[in-house]
């Protein structure tokens, strides 16, 4: 470990030694400097001292609640945080995302899924201003036959302009600004209707359905506007 090491740093907070070993191999193979912590307290310590570029945090830790570690970490750091959680704990995932986690991976997970989530988290952190609803970095975003011009507020499908309502457009713009990242219902409501949106997210689903019908070739088998049931939505751009 030399000080001239220019590789990005990943801190893994996970109590299971075998999962740590698998993560170590994966991360090192993909050019990360791997630092591990087997519990929450050490994890916080490592995150403070190593200035990581990415934190992978297991929600089920022996000493502290994973959510506690997450909140503590978020109180002083904007580092991208990827959460590991078990299936069936959708409420925990939502809570972690609302508390500032960038994304989550459900155990058991494969390496492709992990790397994809890591890439998105790193991409968003590398782009200043993104994630907080600030300036849009690229005025025109294209994925598949979809084209969104954030500057002129125009949307095209296969070159043909599509008319969106104000709400649909805001929803789309929010998803585009957080492309490939999961957004919880609450996060979307806050960005589209303002931080004090008080109604239930049942209507969010309705608007999402309308957006899909206008922009997806087969709305019942969406390619771009993905639903993470019980958690929120994700715009897939690749």
């Amino acid at each position, binding site marked *: 470990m030399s000080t001239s090491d220019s590789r990005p740093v990943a801190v893994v907070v996970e109590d299971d030694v075998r999962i740590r070993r698998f993560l170590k191999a994966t991360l090192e193979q993909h050019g990360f400097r791997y630092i591990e912590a087997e519990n929450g307290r050490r994890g916080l310590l490592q995150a403070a001292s190593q200035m990581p570029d990415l934190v992978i945090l297991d929600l089920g830790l022996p000493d502290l609640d994973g959510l506690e570690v997450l909140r503590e970490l978020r109180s002083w750091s904007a580092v991208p945080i990827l959460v590991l959680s078990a299936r069936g704990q959708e409420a925990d995932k939502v809570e972690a995302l609302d508390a500032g986690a960038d994304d989550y991976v459900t155990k058991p997970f494969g390496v492709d899924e992990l790397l994809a989530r890591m890439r998105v988290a790193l991409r968003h952190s590398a782009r200043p201003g993104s994630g907080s609803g600030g300036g849009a970095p690229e005025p025109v975003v294209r994925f598949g036959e979809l084209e969104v011009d954030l500057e002129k507020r125009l949307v095209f499908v296969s070159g043909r302009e599509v*008319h969106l309502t*104000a709400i649909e457009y805001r929803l789309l713009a929010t998803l585009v600004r957080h492309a490939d990242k999961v957004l919880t219902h609450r996060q979307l409501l806050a960005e589209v209707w303002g931080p004090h949106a008080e109604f239930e997210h049942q209507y969010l689903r309705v608007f999402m359905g309308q957006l*899909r019908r206008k922009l997806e070739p087969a709305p019942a088998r969406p390619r771009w506007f993905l639903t993470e049931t019980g958690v929120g939505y994700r715009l897939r751009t690749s």
Partner: protein
Amino acid sequence: MKRQARLGYVWAVAVTGACTALDAALFAHVDPANLVMVYLAGVVFVATRHDRGAAGLACVLSVLSYDFFFVPPYHSLAVADTEYLLTFSIMFAVAMVVASLADRVRRQADAATERERRTAALYAMSRELASTRGAERLAEVLKRHVEQVFRGEAGVRLAPTRDAVPGGPRVADDDPAEGALRVPLDAGGRLHGELRFRVRAADRPLPAEERAFLATFAAQAALALEREVLAGDAAECRAQAEAERMRNTLLRSISHDLRTPLASIKGSSSLLLRSPDLDARVRGDLIADIEEEADYIARMVTNLLELTRLESGAVRLRKEWVPVEELVGAVTERLEQRLRAHPLTVTLPAELPAAPLDPTLIHKVLLNLLENAVEHTPAGTPVELSASVVESEVIVALADRGPGLQPGEERRVFDKFYRTTAEGRGRGMGLGLTVCEGIVRLHGGRIWAENRPGGGVTFRFSLPLVGELPPPPPPPPAFDPLLVGGEAR
């Protein structure tokens, strides 16, 4: 009672007076001896309606009136002819005998009426007890009926069942001055609590037969409570036997269904570990097997956990209005990889409404049905997913072109650990469909399977469309200058 007695004396006086008036009218026309008959009739009249005292008073007044008005010297109690003394004696004796006979008949009639009233009241309570379940409700029935029949304040205190002390009183006085009684709820030696009763001030003290009757009410309720306890014991026994049977099946299933993939993982990985010079293609296959088997075990464990949660009642429905289309999209996206070998067509009507459902749970239902179809049908066969609204239900259907079900299996495929015996069916623990059924039932819907004409199975489930989508939200405030401008042209 006292008021009624006073009324009897009034009647005795009135009836004797009436007889005297009638005799006065007849006096000129009939023999004086026949006037006695009118008085006797009057005594019988009073005796059949009122108690012995009133009848006695009527006798005495009749003799005196007869003497005073109709026996010379008139308007005097003196008697000129001593023969009349005999008339008076016989008249009095006959009147008293008639009065006591009439009184006895009346008492018997009253007793019969009272018996009938009690039987009816007891029957009414028994009937209600028989159709009531739950100790608290039974106690409520007893309290209500006792208050109605005995006109007082009743209270029932239930206590855990214990053996009664033999020879204890059936009805005990708690506070005689206050008319407070205590009746144990004794069902043939087993106590279920006690009935407390406060007699109305006007009825104190409660007559012995009323106390006995009160005890009968309490005993009847105690028997109903005993029945409740016994039924609970029997249900518990059945549940225990069922749990025992399930545990055994579960152990057998786990040992077989989880050990097989584990054996494959163990075998492949140990081979990979010890044979570094394996052919690259073989290595690749072994590694792919390990991944596939791990996924299989993960699915099994998920279903097992889900079922345990459903059965233990730990699953709380969190219904929201969710468009079915969205769930279908989420599930097909999740299964993208596994659906590669099966062409999937999705047919949803454009006007398919949102339905009130728990998205994570119904997601699980769709996922299991689709996985089931993928697992149990040959590669290349199509899978069709569709939904429709029939009356006030959304019906989702998943049809495959696999080997279909054996006759009679349409229901049993939803049984826990049931595996179809049809040829060409894949492996599985027999839990996926059981989980589906549990979730659909929790939503108040149904799930069923039918063989398709031309081969294959259709699984359908329904979800009731109850309630209404809440009103739409207000338009978003223009808080973000970048997004202001209403319609995006």
